[in-house]
């Protein structure tokens, strides 16, 4: 599963060279041979300076994200799939229907074409799965040692659904917090493949486009108040933000939070809190208690939401904090993690 390439190892004509980023014949060939056959569509194919899209009148959601994951390929996914899903999911959880993406590839000199091909294939597959087109793009090449193989930036637009009003300001005491499935798999799977930390695990990244699941959630007929995908910072980051933004406290029930045995044990081994570990295929949603069951049923009707669960509720306790009721019945505070979570010593 692990990538069998490190910067500076490829040789011959099978690798990206600086000239591929020069904007000349080599750039044209790179795109013609390695990008267009996989991603080609009516919008991208003309290779004009901008793509021109026709979208429904109304509100447009617009977002961007950069992807620098190491290693480029990890259990359950790769940087290409991540770059599509990350941006598509940011649109979806805003209540938008994702439409089109831009794709900027920053390639490091020496990157083998087979790695590039693998990633572009993966981008194409993920875009198909998500129902979006890659409408415009750019390619640059940087000198060896200035990037870890490849950096991808995607931006995306989506059309906002009518009648959706997602805002933490609408959240009230008693509202429920829902998560659509097992947490922490992505972060742990990537860590398991990282140089210097490599360990055997059955865990796979949950990276997936969430448009379909969000569609199911939006059609549940619930008074949906908030959605976010708990990526970096994990579930802890999202609920900490919610407590800050609403001025309300949140009580989470540890026993209700979906977490695989493997993830729980791996996190324990590394000294990490599963609540703080990144996910790439989950939604955290908030709705009134009366709508919670309806929402859970809707999630479970979708393959990506089979393990959806109500994990907590908002309360009026002050100051606003997130508290976790632990499996043993104790209580502790949940906070936004500081920067990168680091494995502990022993």
């Amino acid at each position, binding site marked *: 599963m692990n990538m069998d390439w490190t910067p500076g190892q490829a040789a011959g004509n099978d690798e990206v060279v600086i000239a591929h980023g020069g904007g000349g014949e080599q750039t044209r060939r790179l795109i013609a041979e390695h990008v267009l056959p996989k991603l080609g569509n009516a919008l991208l194919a003309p290779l004009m300076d901008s793509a021109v899209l026709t979208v429904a009148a109304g509100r447009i959601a617009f977002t961007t994200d950069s992807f620098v994951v190491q290693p480029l390929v990890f259990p359950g996914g790769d940087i290409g799939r991540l770059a599509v899903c990350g941006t598509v999911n940011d649109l979806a959880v805003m209540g938008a229907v994702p439409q089109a993406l831009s794709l900027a590839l920053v390639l490091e000199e020496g990157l083998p074409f087979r790695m590039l091909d693998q990633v572009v294939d993966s981008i194409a597959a993920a875009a198909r799965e998500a129902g979006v087109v890659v409408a415009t793009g750019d390619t640059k090449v940087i000198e060896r040692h200035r990037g870890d193989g490849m950096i991808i930036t995607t931006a995306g637009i989506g059309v906002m659904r009518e009648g959706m009003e997602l805002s933490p300001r609408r959240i009230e005491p008693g509202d429920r917090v829902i998560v659509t499935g097992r947490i922490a798999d992505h972060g742990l799977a990537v860590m398991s493949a990282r140089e210097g930390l490599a360990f055997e695990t059955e865990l796979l990244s949950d990276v997936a486009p969430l448009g379909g699941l969000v569609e199911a959630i939006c059609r549940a007929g619930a008074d949906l108040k908030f959605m976010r995908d708990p990526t970096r910072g994990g579930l802890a980051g999202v609920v900490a933000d919610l407590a800050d933004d609403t001025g309300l406290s949140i009580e989470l029930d540890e026993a209700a939070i979906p977490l695989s045995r493997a993830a729980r044990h791996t996190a324990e081994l590394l000294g990490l809190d599963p609540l703080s570990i990144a996910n790439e295929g989950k939604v955290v949603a908030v709705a009134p208690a009366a709508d919670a069951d309806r929402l859970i049923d809707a999630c479970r009707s979708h393959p990506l939401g089979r393990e959806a669960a109500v994990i907590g509720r908002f309360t009026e306790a002050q100051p606003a904090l997130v508290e976790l009721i632990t499996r*043993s019945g*104790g209580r502790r505070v949940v906070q936004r993690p500081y920067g990168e979570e680091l494995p502990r010593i022993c």
Partner: protein
Amino acid sequence: MVQNKTEILIKQIEETAGQLGDVQLMEICGTHTVSLFRTGVKSLLPANVHLISGPGCPVCVTSQGYIDEACELAGRPGMTICTYGDMVRVPGRVGSLEHLRARGAQVVVVYSPRDAVRYAASHPDREVVFLGVGFETTAPATAAAVLEAQREGLKNFSVLTAHKLVMPAMLAMLATGEMRVNGFLCPGHVSIVTGSEVYRPIVQVYARPCVVAGFEPEQLLRGILQLLRQLTQGRAEVENVYGVAVTPDGNPSAQRILEQVFEPADAVWRAMGTIPLSGLELRAAWSDFDARRRFGVIFGKDYDPPGCRCGEVIQGKTQPIECPLFARTCTPATPVGPCMVSSEGTCAAWYKYGRSGTDRAMFHNAGGSRR
């Protein structure tokens, strides 16, 4: 089922603690500290049972001089520092390893010293120095790495040692006669290596009960209950509720490899000064792998950052909330001392998990500086 066992234990703890006045129990293991908070066990204890975190966080007990030494090495050309993640954010006099890395130093986070050996093997043009910190739990892995480096004939791997031994520090604290601690919750991981009998002098000389426990809520509660029972019965014995992992004599192969590679030496503990024979240094036969000898670094003087009370915190003399910097100028994002840096540090645990989930006062005190 688990819930029931926990509930029964808590009830028993309440009944036993009811026969006692204020009780101070010390855990001497960073993983215990974190588990007590993370599992919420701390919030379940009766008000008169106080858990104090002792010098059990490997990063926290590491002297400031060592951090400066590591930073000095990291700044030299051609040098790669391999370290456990917790170490990279500890501030030294000239910034942390994290800052040095941002300025171009090569600092690589590894999960095991063997990864550092592998890194050295695949980067023959670099001098790779592993920061050997931690107690009896991590020291055998460092010893194994040194043996592996020697077997493979690596000339570019060395260790900057600051390994420490738990028992000499406990005895040194007790010898001051100022310790208010009534009993010790002894570390599960360390005891796997040393065996539970190592705590015998504490019960014999200082008449403080010692109970070895694991890290699950039930283990923690059982350990605390046994300590309280000993206190009500006026006993001071070594007990082990973690029998699945810990034996009286410990792990002989881990002890052998420690003995083979290291020898006990005086060691500087943060704010506790030099404790005789409380550290491990490489034996003369392995001096080629000793970064200190190889690069001529001099162990800097130990000091506490101004205002920082980590030194008192790790000895259980001060609670984090009593430190004027806690949650004000010292937070996980801007740590002043190591107890806020390490995920196993007492201050970090207090800050992250709350002194107790229901204690909102702490967060009131912290005020607007928390964001």
